[in-house]
């Protein structure tokens, strides 16, 4: 049996996930391709357009893209028995996609920075003038969801982004870029996904990561089976494995917050209670994404 996986997980994580799956399911051989979400989607869409999609399973960063694929009828519904251990907001009621972990976006700062931020509002303060950077929603799916999430909070909203823009914040590339510019001291503060900052800190980089008090947005790295999957059985096994306790433990060891209830958070993270994850409505997000992108672009002058 074989299985083709398209994923946007980082290399090592993808390898670890596949290794764990293969160990648990001897006889299934996984071929995987890893790329950034944009590229993997471009590849998949082109394959679909050409009438010969190769992938069986898709494991990518955000639900919004999955929702889009679902609406385009590209996903195969599958009710996984493991779903019961998950909160309902973390999977599609039709069973087309399931969240596998939570990657939150919080605040990173360079240890040499004068102010220690505690919440989103701090980034709009004069102390942070010109020192803030964030990933651009144009490049990163997670960043778009993050922007939509923060904009959805009454206390922040798009006004908050306007204040940031006024304060000289920039919207730069992807999460990697933000991490680099903060770690290298080009900027003092940034919005970035949790695991990157925490890992980098562990390696000795001069950075700190904060889960802001107002709450964090999260992408949930959903998994889905393509309607055109050539190996549906193996694909189902894969989904089940990822959602299983064993599979979720793999995510924890890799340094992610597991989506499944009842597992401890990985090292370097605060207690689960401190991390307040703000909810996001995937369907609405898909609907509004174009408008939101325009709003964001308007604010940050990304014409």
């Amino acid at each position: 049996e074989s299985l083709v996986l398209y994923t946007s997980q980082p290399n090592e994580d993808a390898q670890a996930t596949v290794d764990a799956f293969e160990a648990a399911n001897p006889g299934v051989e996984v071929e995987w391709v890893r790329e950034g979400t944009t590229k993997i989607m471009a590849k998949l869409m082109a394959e679909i357009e050409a009438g010969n999609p190769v992938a069986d399973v898709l494991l990518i960063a955000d639900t919004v893209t999955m929702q889009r694929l679902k609406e385009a009828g590209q996903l195969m519904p599958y009710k996984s028995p493991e779903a019961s251990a998950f909160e309902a907001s973390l999977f599609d009621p039709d069973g087309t996609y399931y969240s596998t972990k939570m990657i939150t976006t919080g605040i990173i700062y360079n240890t040499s920075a004068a102010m220690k931020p505690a919440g989103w509002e701090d980034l709009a303060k004069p102390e942070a003038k010109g020192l803030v950077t964030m990933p651009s929603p144009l490049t990163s799916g997670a960043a778009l969801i993050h922007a939509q999430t923060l904009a959805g909070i009454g206390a922040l909203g798009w006004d908050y982004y306007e204040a940031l823009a006024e304060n000289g914040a920039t919207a730069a590339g992807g999460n990697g870029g933000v991490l680099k510019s903060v770690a290298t001291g080009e900027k003092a503060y940034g919005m970035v996904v949790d695991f990157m900052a925490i890992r980098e800190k562990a390696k000795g980089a001069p950075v700190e990561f904060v889960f802001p008090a107002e709450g964090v947005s999260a992408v949930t790295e959903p998994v889905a089976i393509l309607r055109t999957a050539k190996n549906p059985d193996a694909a189902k096994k894969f989904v089940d494995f990822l959602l299983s306790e064993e599979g979720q433990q793999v995510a924890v060891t890799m340094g992610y917050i597991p989506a499944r209830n009842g597992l401890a958070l990985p090292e370097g993270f605060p207690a689960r209670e401190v991390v307040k994850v703000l909810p996001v409505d995937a369907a609405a997000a898909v609907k509004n994404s174009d408008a939101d992108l325009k709003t964001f672009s308007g604010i940050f002058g990304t014409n």
Partner: protein
Amino acid sequence: MSGVGEPAWLLAFVCGAVFLLSVLPLIHLGWAGLKGLEGGEAASVLLEAATFAALRNTLVAAAGGMVISLVVGALFAFVVALTDIRGKLALSFAFMLPMMIPPQVTALAWVEMSGPSSPLLKTLGLAPPLGSPQPLYSLAGIALLLGVQHAPLVFLAIKAGLATHPRDGVEAARLSGASPWRVFRDIVLPLACPALIAGGAIAFISGIGNFGIPAILGIPASIETLPTLIFAKFASFGSSTFGEIAVLSTIIASISAGGLLLQQRALKGRDYRLIGLTGARAAFTLGRLRIAVETLLWGTLALVLVAPLLALVASSLVPAYGVPLTLHTVSLQAYGEVLFRQTVTLTALKNSVFLASAAAVGLLVIALPAGYLLAARRGRVANLLAILIEIPYALPGIVLAVAFILAFAAPLPVIGVSIYGTIWIILAAYLSSFFAVSLKPVMSAFLQMDPSLEEAARLAGAGFLRRMRDVLLPLVAPAAGASVILVFLIAANELTVSALLWSAGTQTLGVAIFNLDDSGSSNLASALSVLVVAVVIGLMATLEVLAKYLPEGVLPWRN
């Protein structure tokens, strides 16, 4: 070229190659685009202000980059080819290396070099304060780095062209009383025109299609270019995406076609064919200026090569970003990791070396007849062919890759086998993408050749292939060598095309480096980049050692 009778199959061969490599994928892209356009939504992208701004930025950045490439590349080429400076071999060798360093890396290195944490500026006490604006995040910055990145293209194109320069023409001009500078302006420069124009064109087109540099330098400053805009469109995939991509790609294609027509116009009515034996190359003595020129060249090299390379090495020696490089933090662990633990490294190295060599040699096989044909017959058909050859190179890698998936994802007709998912599709895409790069120097060499040299071979009874091998190829050897090296260097590091086309076991080096970097292992990525540079230097050094067994003039760094 004599107008009479190139073999009939030649046109068919070239047209066939252009069809397979260029027209077929473009048709598929266009077709998908048309379907996307049906809704009518996608066409509106044409009217968006963002598109205009991106178009303007692309043109400005590419043109600026072209100018910088031309200035830097031509300076090096002329000085190295025509003057008596010392250390030519080392200079030309080193000058080609910046092409080896992936654009993202170069961009990051420069950002780092000129930013608050720049080790250089820190040591000098000139480091700007934390958070000060980065001057490279601007159109000028993009142009500068595009220029630096593509200068070797210009360098090689011009140097190959200069290899055939007639010495007596220069001598006649000097005897007419023209100072060396005057001779340069009146004789050398105009005669180098085809090469200059070819080099400029290739730099311009490279600038249009480049994604890595504007992505890193432009996005923070909210400067979109067409490639980054296209990337953004891919990011928010929707029903109209293909339509929009097709529309934006058409804009890029039109720019490159326009550029090419401009180029042909610039060349029109000029006959650069040299008459008779070209003999030894002209040499100018610099005298007291020599030291100054040498300093200038090595200084430039230090800036464009040594600095990014050092940055790369430095970041490969520390475990994470921002960790200062001290005796305490330095470790070779990253090298051990990529060399001995990451199996993908060796696979990727093998794949990339195979792809780069196959593309370089394969393209030579196509570019020689194509260059010959295009130089021999000028006119509509030739113009059309030239434009079709150019477009895939001008398109951002991601678009070309999508076009190839569209064209080749389904099993091939007749044989029923799909090359999709194999290394061959990457090779095909490389052939398509770098055709223009390979063709440019070869074609300008054919344009300059004294036609009677080929005629003599024909009369000696040599058929087309025979004289191609025995006479034409050796005569254009410098250009052919430049073309092979160019394609090899670009392909060895290629990222965006292969990013979409690779699958298990066919990773390329670019993909491997990018993935390492993307997953936060910047030290591994840097270590692998350094290794790649080292491998390529090793390969080039091997060639250098073998130089006496190679045809004369093929090694572009040799004089």
